[in-house]
């Protein structure tokens, strides 16, 4: 059916065009022979083709354009006729003899155009007559085209200021009246299209109307081009009249398009000065009009205007643009009860952007917008419309983008309230946006209060929200989020330890409620941050003012202890273990022996209770040994206990090589070069001997288990330890013991062995040779070793 329809339409257009061409030809011939009567007759016949009702707007336009071209020729001919002495008044009458109204009116407009040009009558009279006579066409499509022809030919003949057709008095108002009248009539016709024809073709009709809208909008464009339409004229005449028509036509498509048209064609400063009028019309529009887009565009335009012309900003204040817009939006939302939440949010988003551009210094405005938004959202629960959510995110991002500074955003008290309305998923996206903004701009957040506010905002990624999560978050995303939180922690900084301590306390509060999965991301940076704080603390006793510092190292350590305690339960014992050691070291620096001891104890407990994997044990043990070795603070007793324990752990490792290595590492615990109190050669030797024994037995185990002797690598390693302590001058390490060890290795070496061990040994020997060459005590000691 439909395909047939369009086929038929093609046929009709072709037929119409053919008849049209034929008459155009005769008309041209009449023109060429200066035959006015025939020219009129054939032009009327030609224009009769425009009387068709069978064409869609698109096809009709095709025909119209042909007519337009031909009428140009006719107009020139009329002009020549008047020069040849034909009275233009008679001509004007003559064209009205045509019996059919549509051709008659086209001709009348053409003749009218000539009439104006001859200036035999004031342009305003003729225009008024034309626009009145055009009422005869009540058919929407034909009427629209006729009137757009009228608009077209009259464009350069309006009695505008500075125009050659300018009359004596009140001339611009005539031009404006004319255009307004034509506009009003065209709009009526356009709107009427909607209500004619069967309901089932509604969709098609709307499409067709869409194609025609520019014909109507053109009038507004013409108005905006008139010199004489200054601000006063615009405010007093043009705008009220146009709005009246728009409001009264009660048509969704027209209202939407025309309001937008007004916004687009007239200058920004006009809008600014007539804001209340324009906005006043908005709540009166049909409920289905997409008012949010319209208002958003208006605000967008005004923001751009403000952004480009800083000098106009005072005007914005003068006309109270913000409060007007804010009120208007409130009213629109009130008027359109079932406005989707999306629209409301979009409106607020635009308004917010507007106020950020125009009044960047007025945070209270921005806050007000957010407040209104909250009011609107309240009682609606979480938003489940994805587009609305998106819009809300955009709304929330706007202040961040504008100020490049979260701190400013934090001052907006309504901000977190808006965030509340996001669903969990979006909240976390929003939080990421905020965090990223902070990172990008390197914003330091310096008070506990702000931190508190910030965390309120980014709750989405700080803890699992109350509701059970339906959707499992992607593991990668989660990690990324948490990493960004970790990064964020370093942006929360204050030079004043007291404030800083408050900050970390806030962090702790939030992190500890954040659920086990997050802790392993959040605790380490927190600890590091806190440790940094400790380092900045004035050394005790080094307080020249005798002021009682409220933040003491002790307090901080207690704090640390508490947060790390959370970790093993997570379970992330590895991490806790490392952090304990870190803290212990920090405590060491602060000379806090009991605290350091406590940390160590905690670390040991973790080692014993939680770290069961043998590889992990090895690593952990290495850490213990390393840390312990560096500790300065311990008294003999404490140190003994700890060292003893560590050695014990070493001996209890599962694999012989590991045992061996751990044991020889322990040897370092007993000999610290720079501390006289810890130079126990006996114990060093003991350790090394133990290590040798274990290495031996390791080899035996290897022998029996696999039938081949194990590597000598362990022996070589032990040799290196020997050499180290020998070099350091540990009395218990004798030349003989070194020599015998070398011999032992050489024996073992004779067996086919792995090349890496061989080269290791070779390098070791080379090293010894090298040391021998050295001057001084070291050289001498090495000289003593005979290989």
């Amino acid at each position, binding site marked *: 059916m439909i395909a047939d329809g369009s086929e038929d339409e093609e046929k009709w257009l072709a037929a119409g065009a053919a008849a049209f061409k034929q008459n155009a030809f005769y008309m041209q011939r009449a023109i060429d022979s200066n035959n006015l009567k025939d020219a009129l007759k054939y032009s009327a016949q030609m224009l009769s083709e425009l009387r068709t009702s069978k064409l869609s707007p698109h096809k009709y336009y095709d025909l119209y354009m042909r007519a337009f071209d031909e009428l140009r020729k006719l107009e020139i001919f009329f002009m020549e006729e008047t020069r040849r002495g034909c009275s233009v008044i008679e001509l004007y009458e003559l064209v*009205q003899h045509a019996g059919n109204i549509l051709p008659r009116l086209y001709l009348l407009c053409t003749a009218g155009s000539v009439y104006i040009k001859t200036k035999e009558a004031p342009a305003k009279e003729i225009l008024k007559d034309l626009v009145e006579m055009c*009422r005869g066409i009540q*058919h929407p499509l034909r009427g629209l085209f006729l009137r757009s022809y009228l608009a077209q030919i009259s464009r350069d003949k309006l009695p505008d200021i500075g125009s050659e057709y300018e009359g004596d008095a009140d001339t611009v108002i005539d031009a404006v009246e004319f255009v307004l009248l034509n506009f009003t009539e065209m709009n009526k016709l356009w709107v009427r299209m909607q209500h004619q024809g069967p309901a089932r073709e509604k969709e098609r009709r709307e499409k067709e109307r869409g194609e025609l809208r520019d014909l109507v909008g053109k009038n507004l464009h013409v108005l905006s081009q008139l010199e004489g339409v200054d601000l006063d004229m615009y405010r007093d005449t043009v705008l009220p009249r146009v709005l009246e028509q728009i409001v009264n036509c009660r048509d969704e498509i027209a209202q939407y398009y025309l309001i937008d048209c007004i916004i687009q064609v007239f200058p920004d400063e006009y809008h600014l000065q007539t804001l209340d009028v324009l906005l006043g019309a908005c709540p009166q529009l049909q409920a289905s009009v997409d008012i949010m887009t319209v208002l958003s565009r208006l605000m967008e335009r005004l923001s751009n205007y403000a952004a480009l012309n800083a000098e106009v900003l005072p005007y914005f204040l003068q006309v109270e643009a913000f409060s007007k817009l804010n009120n208007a939006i409130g009213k629109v939302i009130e008027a359109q009860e079932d406005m989707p939440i999306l629209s409301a949010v979009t409106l607020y988003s635009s308004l917010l952007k507007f106020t950020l551009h125009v009044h960047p210094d007025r945070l209270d405005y921005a806050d007000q917008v957010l407040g209104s938004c909250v009011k609107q959202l309240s009682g609606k629960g979480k938003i489940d419309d994805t587009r609305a959510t998106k819009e809300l995110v955009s709304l929330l991002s706007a202040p961040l983008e504008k100020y490049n500074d979260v701190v400013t955003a934090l001052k907006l008290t309504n901000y977190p309230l808006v965030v509340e309305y996001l669903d969990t998923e979006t909240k976390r996206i929003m939080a990421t946006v905020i965090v990223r903004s902070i990172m990008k701009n390197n914003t330091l957040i310096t008070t506990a209060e702000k931190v508190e506010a910030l965390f309120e905002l980014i709750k989405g990624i700080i803890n699992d929200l109350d509701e059970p999560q339906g959707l499992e978050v992607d593991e990668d995303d989660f990690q990324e989020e948490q990493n960004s939180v970790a990064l964020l922690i370093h942006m929360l900084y204050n030079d004043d330890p007291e404030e800083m301590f408050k900050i970390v306390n806030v962090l702790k509060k939030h992190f500890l409620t954040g659920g086990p999965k997050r802790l392993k991301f959040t605790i380490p940076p927190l600890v590091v941050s806190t440790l940094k704080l400790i380092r900045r603390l004035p050394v005790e006793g080094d307080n020249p003012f005798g002021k009682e510092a409220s933040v003491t190292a002790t307090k901080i350590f207690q704090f640390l202890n508490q947060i790390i305690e959370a970790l093993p339960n997570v379970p992330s014992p590895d991490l806790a273990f490392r952090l304990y050691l870190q803290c212990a070291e920090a405590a060491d620096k602060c000379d806090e022996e009991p605290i350091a001891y406590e940390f160590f104890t905690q670390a040991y407990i973790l080692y014993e209770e939680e770290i069961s994997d043998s590889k992990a044990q090895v690593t952990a043990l290495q850490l213990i040994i390393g840390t312990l070795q560096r500790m300065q603070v311990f008294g003999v007793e404490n140190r003994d206990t700890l060292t003893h324990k560590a050695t014990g752990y070493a001996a209890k490792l599962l694999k012989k090589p590991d045992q061996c290595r751990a044991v020889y590492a322990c040897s370092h615990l007993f000999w610290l070069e720079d501390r006289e109190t810890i130079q126990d050669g006996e114990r060093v030797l003991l350790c090394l001997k133990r290590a040798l024994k274990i290495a031996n037995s390791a080899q035996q185990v290897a022998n029996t288990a696999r039938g081949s002797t194990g590597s000598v690598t362990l022996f070589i390693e032990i040799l290196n330890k020997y050499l180290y302590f020998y070099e350091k001058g540990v009395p218990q390490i004798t030349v003989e013991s070194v020599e015998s060890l070398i011999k032992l290795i050489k024996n073992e070496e004779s067996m086919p062995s792995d090349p890496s061990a061989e080269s290791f040994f070779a390098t070791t020997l080379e090293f010894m040779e090298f040391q021998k060459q050295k001057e001084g005590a070291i050289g001498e000691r090495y000289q003593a070793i005979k290989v």
Partner: protein
Amino acid sequence: MNYLLGAFKPACNISITFTDGKNRKQVPTKKDNGQIVMNPLFQSQETIAGKINIEPYQGKKVEHNGVKVELLGQIEMYFDRGNFYDFTSLVREIDVPGEIYERKTYPFEFSSVEMPYETYNGVNVRLRYVLKVTVTRGYAGSIVEYQDFVVRNYVPLPPINNSIKMEVGIEDCLHIEFEYNKSKYHLKDVILGKIYFLLVRIKIKNMDLEIRRRESTGAGANTHVETETLAKFELMDGAPVRGESIPVRVFLTPYDLTPTHKNINNKFSVKYYLNLVLVDEEDRRYFKQQEITLYRLKEETS
């Protein structure tokens, strides 16, 4: 053939010329056979004067019992063709019986002739003015020559000329109010007005204004009424909505109109009507007819 024709040929050629014939306005008149000829134009109370030439053909003489000229005002009904009713008849004897040997010119004059009616060419009736020259002869039959002339009478602007204003409608369907600026129009006038739609519940396709002429002839039971539509002028295209007002502007010049004639000599009447016709999408017609009076206004240029 030639001599045969010659046998029936009148013995003389009669021609009638008017005194100011060269300057007088000529108006086209349609003859019975459809030809258009130009005839001089007079109005009532004018003196109709001129010359009559009688020119016998070469070598012939015309014997006659007298020559006369008549001015006749006739009404002819087409259903009674050939039977003229003379409402005006004036006679001038211009020659006593005798013989005419050569071209002879007679002046004539009818002074201040009363010609109350206008020349009219209708569907069923014709009113004409004619000059009839008769050369009376005995046995050979009289020689007659006619000269038509046209009479138009001008009237001053009517002192009272009300507008026509009326509200009409079909209940709950269509209500309109129309207004024509006058009830009496002269023949070169313009009808101005507007049509105001008070209620529209039908789908109107277009609206025309027709100018209709009603010619009634005869009297009593023999009355013939003939109605012609002389003009059909489209006023509106498409369907209006409530509150629309459509302008009317119709120039009467292009149409072949006459003044309204009321009961001319009890023989005929010509009346004019404006008929407003609305056509709906099913081609149903809704109309309202209003009589208007047409009159001939004195033209300033003549």
